[in-house]
């Protein structure tokens, strides 16, 4: 991954920064420039809740090339307490023991080594709590 691309996503990946429409209070993650709901362009930066619940999940057995040495690993869709949903790996848990509805917490982890130089890329993963 080229570094400018990685660099500009750090606020979301490291700090869970989202933005909230000042008019209708809709939260966008990742941040948007235009609120599709109320047509406003006025936003404020907020930090997302780091806890929520597991809405669905899978266990990846055949992975993209960057993750081919990590299989099997669990990926799920989680809903955070402020209503925002995101896709994340679920780590530190036996994938066979996962259940829809489990409470989770997002933690800061290395996600992948990317590109020929093996750039370490970080971000959020979920753990079951």
């Amino acid at each position, binding site marked *: 991954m080229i570094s400018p691309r990685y660099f500009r996503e750090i606020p979301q990946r490291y700090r869970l920064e989202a933005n909230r429409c000042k008019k209708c209070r809709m939260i966008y993650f*990742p941040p948007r420039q235009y609120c599709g709901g109320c047509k406003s362009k006025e936003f404020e930066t907020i930090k997302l809740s780091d806890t929520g619940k597991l809405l*669905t*999940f*899978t266990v990846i057995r055949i992975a993209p090339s960057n993750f081919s040495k990590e299989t099997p690993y669990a*990926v799920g869709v989680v809903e955070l307490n402020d209503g925002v949903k995101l*896709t994340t*790996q679920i780590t530190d848990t036996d994938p066979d023991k996962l259940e*829809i509805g489990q409470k989770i917490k997002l933690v800061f982890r290395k*996600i992948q080594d990317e590109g020929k130089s093996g750039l370490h890329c970080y*971000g959020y993963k979920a753990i079951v709590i």
Partner: protein
Amino acid sequence: MREVAVIGAGMTKFGELWSKSIKDIFVEAAIKAIENAGVDHIDSMYVGSMSGGLFVGQEHLGAVMADYLGVNPIPATRVESACASGGVSFRQAYFEVASGQSDIVLAGGVEKMTDGADVTDILATAADQEYEVYQGITFPGLYAMIANAHMHQYKTTREQLAAVAVKNHRNGSKNPNAQFRSEISADTVLNSTLVADPLRLLDCSPVSDGGAAVVLCAMDIAKKFTDSPIRIKASVQASDTIALHSRRSLTTLDAVVRAAEKAYIQSNLKPSDIDFAEVHDCFTIAEIVVSEDLGFFEKGCGGVSVQEGLTSLESGRIPINTSGGLKSKGHPVGATGIAQIIELYEQLQGRAGSRQVKNAHIGMAQNMGGSGASCVIHILEAI
């Protein structure tokens, strides 16, 4: 807008076409379609392709294919909407004829997926790179998460997923252009390799090469070329959030629901008027969800319906994927939407051979991109 007809169709066999290039494949399908239509020229052409650039390092596919088809200097445009590229290519051709801008237009689609590129990585570009793929998700993984949510919410079973694959292979065994012409048992599906739980290898459409093309023309001149033109009754498209996680629901594809609602209004038809349908079964769960979201079955009943044979060719209330679907016919992504139209065209002309639907008068094609962020629906009618 004037009425538009489909007057010709042609496709390559789908499969691992090692000896043919992307150009060979497209041109073969296009020539067959033009000859089948009996036209002496085309005014314009569209090429649906998801990712010529990543699969074979070739972009600018409109110009490439016009050159190799020998039709310069007509306008030639490549259309991209991930796995819905073919359906959207057809829709652009429809608009061009309907608007009066052109009389005879070729709508094609092509993909060359077996030339060595990493197919899992390339297909994943149809999802949100930064917020889905970055985390290690794959396309089977996205549909597996839909499957898991559907099984949790509606008690859909693993056996019901397998029933989709079994049915589509049975249909595909009757299709000479299908990649897999072998019937499979539920046990074979249920014991195939896990790809992304709960989806197994035989829940997934294959990696395929293939091309497909149809010729559209203004209805008022269609009888010059064929005694049985097929009318385009509805052409509708809708979009949804690129990321699965941002959707209102994980078990309903809103782009499909919205496009279907508009298609029924545009055609003045209702779900029970549709005699048969080609739907986007990139994974077995997709056919179940889509059969609900198109209004053929109550929400949550798609799995039971396929298991009870309601979508089978032999005794079905609404036969689905008589061609074998993406699962058995193959899924060269850019060609898929056009190949669905070709199945409708052949069925509506009564030329589908051993997989002919009895009294086929109205057919629907539903083609989608990504995990459902794009959906394009066409309704065709025999006249």
